[in-house]
C-alpha cells in the first residue's frame, strides 16, 4: 500500500512541477492544485504508524486503543485542504482578472510595467 501511495505522490509532484514550469497561467494553477494534492497524500502516509507503531492517542486509562487510525494527520489534511481550496479560488479569480486586463494567458508577456 505504501509503495502505491509513494508512486502516486511522486507522479502528482512530477506532474505538478512540470505544469508549474509551463508558461501558461492556467497550467501554472493546475500545477499548484496537483502539488497540493500530492502534499495531502504525503501527510496521509505519515500517519500510517509505520514508524511509531501506534497513533498518538490514548484512552482514559492511558492505554493506546487498537485498530484506530492516526487522527492528527486527518486533521492536518483537512486544514490543508481547506486552505488550498481557498487559495485556489483566490488565484483563479486573480488569473481571470489579469486575463481580462492583459488579454493574455502567457506569464512571460505579463511584465509589470505598462
Amino acid at each position, binding site marked *: 500500500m505504501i509503495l502505491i501511495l509513494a508512486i502516486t505522490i511522486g507522479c502528482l509532484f512530477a506532474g505538478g512541477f512540470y505544469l*508549474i514550469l509551463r508558461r501558461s*497561467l492556467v497550467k*501554472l*494553477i493546475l500545477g*499548484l492544485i496537483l*502539488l*497540493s494534492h500530492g*502534499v495531502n497524500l*504525503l*501527510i496521509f*502516509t*505519515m*500517519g500510517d504508524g509505520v*514508524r*511509531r507503531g501506534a497513533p*498518538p492517542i*490514548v484512552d*482514559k486509562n*492511558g492505554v493506546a486503543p487498537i485498530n484506530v487510525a492516526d487522527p*492528527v*494527520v486527518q486533521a*492536518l489534511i483537512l*486544514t*490543508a485542504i481547506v*486552505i488550498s481550496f*481557498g*487559495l485556489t479560488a*483566490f*488565484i483563479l479569480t*486573480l*488569473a481571470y*482578472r*489579469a486575463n481580462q*486586463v*492583459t488579454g493574455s494567458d502567457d*506569464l512571460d508577456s*505579463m*511584465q*509589470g*510595467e*505598462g
Partner: protein
Amino acid sequence: MVNHLFLPLVVPLISAALSVMLGRWRLLTRTLTLGASLFNLGYSGWLLWLVSSAGRQVTQASAWAAPFGIALVADLLGAVMLFLAALLMFCTIIYSLLSMEPEYEQFFYYPLLLLLLLGVSGAFLTGDLFNLYVWFEVLLMSSFGLVTIGGSRAQLTGGLKYVALNLIGSTMFLIGSGLIYGLAGTLNMAHIGERLITQSEPGLTTVIATLFLFAFGSKAALAPLFFWLPESYHTPPPAVSAIFSALMTKVGVYALYRVFGTVLPGELVRLAPLILVLGGTTMVLGVFGALNQTEIRRVLSFTIISEIGFVAMGLGFASAAGLAAGLLFTAHMMIVKTALFFLAGAAEQVCGTGDMRRMGGLARREPALATLWFLAMIALAGIPPMSGFFGKLALLQAGVSQGHYLISGWAVLVSLFIFLAILKIWHEVFWKKPVEDLSQRPRLAPALLIPGALLVILSLVIGIGAGPVAELSTQAGTQILDLPGYIEATCGPAGCDAVTLRSH
C-alpha cells in the same frame, strides 16, 4: 494562569470582523483599526518588558498541556518581533489615514491590515509547527488582498507572481511539516527539538531542514527565490509597500531563526555553509538589481533583498553572537526600510510619479522631507550615529571572531554598493534640478512626514543608545539557541515526553 498571550491575536481579529461589518461608518472603522493597533503596540511593549525581566511566557490553548494542545510561546525573539510588527503597523495605519485614497476603504483596506497584523503576531507567538503554517496562510491571504487592492494592471500581474511563488513556498513548508510529523511523531516545536536531538535518521532530518530552508527562504526573499519581491512591492499604494517591506520578508527571517536556531540546531550547523553562500549571493544580486532600477520604490525593494542576505549571514554564523547580530540588524532594517518607503511615498506624491528620471529638485522644495531621507539613508548605509552602523558592526564582529573573513569582507564590499544605490536616489530625486515643472503641484502636507520622522528618530535613538539594545539582542541570541530552556518553558522541567494527559 492568565491566557494573556491570546490578546494580541483576539483583539485584531475581533476588530477586523467588526470593521468589515461597520464598513459604512468610516470614522468608526478607522478608530477601531487605530485602537486595535495601539492596543497591540502597548501590549507587546509590556510583553517585551515581561519576557526580558521574567523569561519566556507560555499559554496553553484550552489548558491542554503542551505537546497535546497548541502552545503559544513568547521568548525574546518572538517578543521583539511582535513589538516591532505592532509598532510598524501603527505607523502604517497613521500614514494610511493621511495618504490613502478613500475609495480603497470600500475594498476593506483597514480590515486587511488588521488581519495581516493578526497573522504576523500569530506566527511570532506560536510554539507549534503546523500552527505556524496556518498563521503563514492567514498573513498571506491578507497580503494577497493588499497587494492587489485597486486592481491596476501592474498590480494584477505582479500579484499573480507573488501569489504563485508564495504558494509553492507554502507547499514546501507543508511537505516539511508532514515529513517531520512522520519522523518525530509530533508538531510541537519544543517536542520536535527534544526528540530529534537523539535521532536515528540524520539524513532524513537534513532533507526536511532543506525543505524548510527553501520554504522560509522563499518567504524571506533569499537568493535564488526572491523574484516575487521586486515584481510586486512597488505596485500597490506606498503605505502597502511600507508595511510589506516591514513585515513580509521578516516573518520568513523569523521562521528561519526559530526553526534552525531553536528546533533544529544540529541542522543549522550542517547547513551553515550553504546558508552563508546563499546569503552572500543574495546580498550581491539584490544590490546589483537595485543599481539597475529607475523607479524609487523598486530600488528600495531590491535593497531589501540585499539586506536579507546580511540577515541570512547572521544565521549562517550558527552562533549566539551571529543570531543576536542578525536580530539587531533585522530590527534596524524593519524600522529604516519602513521609514524610507513612507518618505518615498511622500516624494512620489510631490512629483506625481515614482520614476526617478522625471523627479528632482526636492531638496530645495521639500527640505524637511530631504532631511529625513538623508538621515534614513545614512542609517541604511550603516553610518553612525544611526542604527545601521551597530547592526552591521555586530554582524562583522561575529563573523570575524569566528574566522569567517571572506564573507565578512564581502559584506563590507556589498555595503558600499548599497550606499551607492541609495545615493543614486538622493542624487536623482533630491539634488538634481527638477525635470518637470513642480510649481503647479500642491505642497506636501507636513503631517504626512510624521510616521517617517518617528521611525527615523527611533533609528537615531537605537544608534545612540546602542548599549542596552545590543544587550537585549545578545540575550535574545543566547535564548534562541537554548533548546533545553525552550523545552522546559513549553512542557515543564521533565521534558515534553514526560507530560501526560490530565483528566479534567
